[in-house]
């Protein structure tokens, strides 16, 4: 009954999406304002219906309804309730439903909150959103039905992959999807603006908050995913340039470029073509990423269950949406291209460099990720991994960091090279000082450059605040400062981890100490532990640093449904880094394998990520407040 209700809600939502599209098309083509006005409520209801379908699916999981195929394949009655809840989207169909739900809710939110955009353009935007929604509703209903029944019902389920049985599953996918799919709003705005030829500062000001929201979620989602992989997979790695990781990074790169570009359009009426193109590219990358992860054409630890037929469906959708949008761009952008121009040495110039470098990194990641497929078509099996990406994208990223440091200190429209360098004196000094200091520890070329530039960027990012009345500085300026500072912090963490991590592998008996970094680690003993749906061997490690003593409990965990074992690492977080401990297998002589790492300042990586998102939030609040104040002033005048 509930499953059928969920399916019905989904069908209704799909029908409403079709209605939304029809009404938007008629409203614009025939200039029917009454029809256009009805598009908003339809979009809102469509969003609510897809949310209802998602809630019903979650309810089915929470109740462990074993007559629904998806629940049987991915859940088990003995699972803790949190993983029943989050397990609803821990599989292909459920996560696609989450995708579509966020798509619908985002469209509904635009329909409710968007007041500054011209009415015609908004109608076109909602129409574009409906087109996207239709394709994905079709995909769900015809190819990935989450509510399919299993008859006769199974006695119990197959359980959720133990690697996913973690609080990270409750947080990472929804946040990431809110980001990915939130970019659809920017895409729809761009398509709407191309249709109505309304690409200008007003359009940019209206689009900016939506881009910011999606970008903030995407930043948080990627940061969370990185930390989750770090502590869950048991080897202390936080980024591997894995195809699925790249699939989340590419939209972020495009969205970051878009974020900066839309500000230039909003304040200076420049970069019109760049902004529209980036809005299309950002969501295109989201869709391409969704495709890559589910189609089975690339191997990955994080990939979903493989199904080429579904891959072909999404590929067809991609061709229509991305091909259509790019064709529309080529056809229409010529007529809306009159923006202002500016000097190469100027804030706009810096932002163009920013767009350019981010796009280059995006291109490198895309080519590197797809290249094994190209090689396979020539009959050669290739692997493209961290050595390529670090060597190819690393230097460009460092160049970008330098541009990021100078950018906020450049004047709009025109600036003098010499004056810029004078303003940059302190950041340059910080970089040089760091570079010289680091030569004594020599952390390797990339890490040395990274740490030195991070120092310079940190100083440069707070530079816009000097000589300003801090109380009268707009909130969005603080946003920029904190976001750029976050990049510097994150970069410092990445460089420090790659250069200064120490690793110790030992096989010990109880009482034998091992050393890693500033810590002495002693195995006290191994004891069995029983959990909700697992049993484990837990080590008791006494960890001593100077006068401080702590106890850590890494585990070797065994699950029954499905039968697997996992390493549960035990991490000690200190102010200057993390001690990461993993229990391995025993050997024939009764010694236990221990993997120990001392990772100095590694937490800065994710702390930086949170700072970046925080900066985005401050910018968002600041911009929305400024918009409201401008609107009120205009009303008063």
């Amino acid at each position, binding site marked *: 009954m509930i499953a059928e209700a969920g399916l019905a809600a989904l069908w209704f939502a799909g029908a409403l999406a079709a209605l939304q599209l029809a009404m938007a098309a008629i409203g614009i083509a025939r200039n029917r304002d009454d029809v256009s006005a009805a598009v908003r409520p339809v979009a809102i209801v469509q969003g609510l219906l897809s949310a209802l379908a998602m809630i019903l699916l979650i309810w089915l999981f929470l109740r462990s309804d074993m007559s629904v195929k998806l629940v049987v394949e991915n859940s088990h009655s003995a699972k803790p309730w949190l993983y029943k809840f989050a397990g609803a989207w821990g599989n292909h169909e459920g996560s696609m439903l989450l995708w579509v739900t966020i798509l619908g809710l985002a469209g509904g939110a635009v329909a409710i909150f968007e007041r500054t955009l011209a009415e015609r353009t908004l109608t076109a935007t909602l129409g574009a959103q409906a087109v996207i929604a239709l394709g994905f509703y079709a995909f769900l209903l015809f190819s990935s039905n989450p509510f399919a029944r299993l008859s006769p019902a199974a006695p119990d389920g197959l359980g959720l992959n133990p690697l996913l049985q973690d609080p990270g599953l409750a947080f990472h996918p929804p946040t990431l999807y809110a980001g990915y799919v939130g970019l659809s709003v920017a895409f729809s705005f761009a398509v709407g603006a191309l249709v109505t030829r309304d690409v200008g500062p007003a359009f940019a000001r209206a689009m900016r908050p939506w881009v910011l929201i999606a970008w903030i979620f995407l930043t948080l989602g990627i940061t969370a995913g990185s930390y989750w992989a770090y502590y869950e997979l048991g080897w202390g790695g936080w980024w591997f340039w894995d195809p699925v990781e790249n699939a989340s990074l590419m939209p972020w790169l495009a969205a970051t470029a878009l974020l900066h570009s839309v500000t230039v359009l909003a304040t200076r009426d420049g970069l019109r073509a760049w902004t529209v193109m980036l809005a299309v590219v950002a969501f295109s990358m989201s869709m391409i990423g969704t495709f890559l992860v589910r189609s089975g054409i690339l191997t990955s630890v994080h990939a979903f269950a493989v199904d080429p037929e579904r891959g072909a469906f999404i590929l067809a959708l991609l061709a229509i949406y991305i091909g259509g949008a790019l064709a529309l761009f080529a056809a229409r952008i010529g007529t809306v291209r009159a923006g202002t121009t500016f000097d190469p040495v100027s804030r706009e110039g810096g932002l163009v460099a920013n767009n350019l470098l981010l796009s280059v990194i995006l291109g490198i990641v895309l080519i590197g990720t797809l290249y094994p*497929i190209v090689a396979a078509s020539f009959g050669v099996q290739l692997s493209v991994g961290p050595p390529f990406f670090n060597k190819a994208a690393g230097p460009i990223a460092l160049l970008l960091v330098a541009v990021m440091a100078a950018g906020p200190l450049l004047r709009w429209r025109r600036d003098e090279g010499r004056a810029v360098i004078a303003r940059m004196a302190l950041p340059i000094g910080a970089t040089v000082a760091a570079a010289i200091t680091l030569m004594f520890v020599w952390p390797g070329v990339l890490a040395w450059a990274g740490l030195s530039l991070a120092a310079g960027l940190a100083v440069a990012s707070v530079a816009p605040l000097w000589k300003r009345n801090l109380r009268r500085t707009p909130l969005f300026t603080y946003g920029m400062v904190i976001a750029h500072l976050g990049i510097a912090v994150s970069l410092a963490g990445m460089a420090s981890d790659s250069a200064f991590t120490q690793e110790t592998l030992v096989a010990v008996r109880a009482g034998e100490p091992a050393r890693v970094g500033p810590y002495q680690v002693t195995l006290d003993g191994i004891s069995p532990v029983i959990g909700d749906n697992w049993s484990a061997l837990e080590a008791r490690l006494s960890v001593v640093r100077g006068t401080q003593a702590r106890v850590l409990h890494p585990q070797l965990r065994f699950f029954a449904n499905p039968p697997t074992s996992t390493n549960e690492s035990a991490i000690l977080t200190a102010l200057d880094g993390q001690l990461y401990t993993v229990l391995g297998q025993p050997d024939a002589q009764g010694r236990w394998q221990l993997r120990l790492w001392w990772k100095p300042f590694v937490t800065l990586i994710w702390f930086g990520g949170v700072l970046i998102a925080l900066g985005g939030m401050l910018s968002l609040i600041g911009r929305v407040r400024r918009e409201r104040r401008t609107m009120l002033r205009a009303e008063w005048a």
Partner: protein
Amino acid sequence: MKRVALWAPLAIFALVFVVVISGLVKPGETVVRSAMVGKPVPDFALPAMVPGKPGLSAATFRQGQPRLLNVFASWCVPCIAEAPQLLRLKAAGVPIDAIAVRDTGTAIAGFLARNGDPYARIGSDSASRVQMALGSSGVPETFVVDGRGIVVKQIIGDIRPEQVDEIVQAVRAAR
């Protein structure tokens, strides 16, 4: 910006699309093929695994007669499935040698007792060194080696009944 440049993004997307389609239509190999096919068997000398059966060295393969080299282990489940095929091959006159990967004498003796013993020699490869030297990435795998010690063919996975004739042909042709 020239008119042509505006259509460039669409063209780039079309290129990406083509690449991706080729990945779907012609999926890449899921197994890792050895790069040693066509090259001489690498030099090795492995100790005996079970009493009464000699160990294996590369020299055996240079005696002028084509042989099969089977990579297996007692803990390998598909190896049980291919045991009847190996016995058929032995009956057809094909000499078969083996390397047992990461295994013990007792376990192998038990495996042979349960599943039959088609092997002339079995070498003990306790650290997978020879397996790696051959470019083998799993068990079971079988290599057809000609009389001069050149690897002619690699069969990945257990030998199916349909493949037996084809392997006999390959061995005869490898003279």
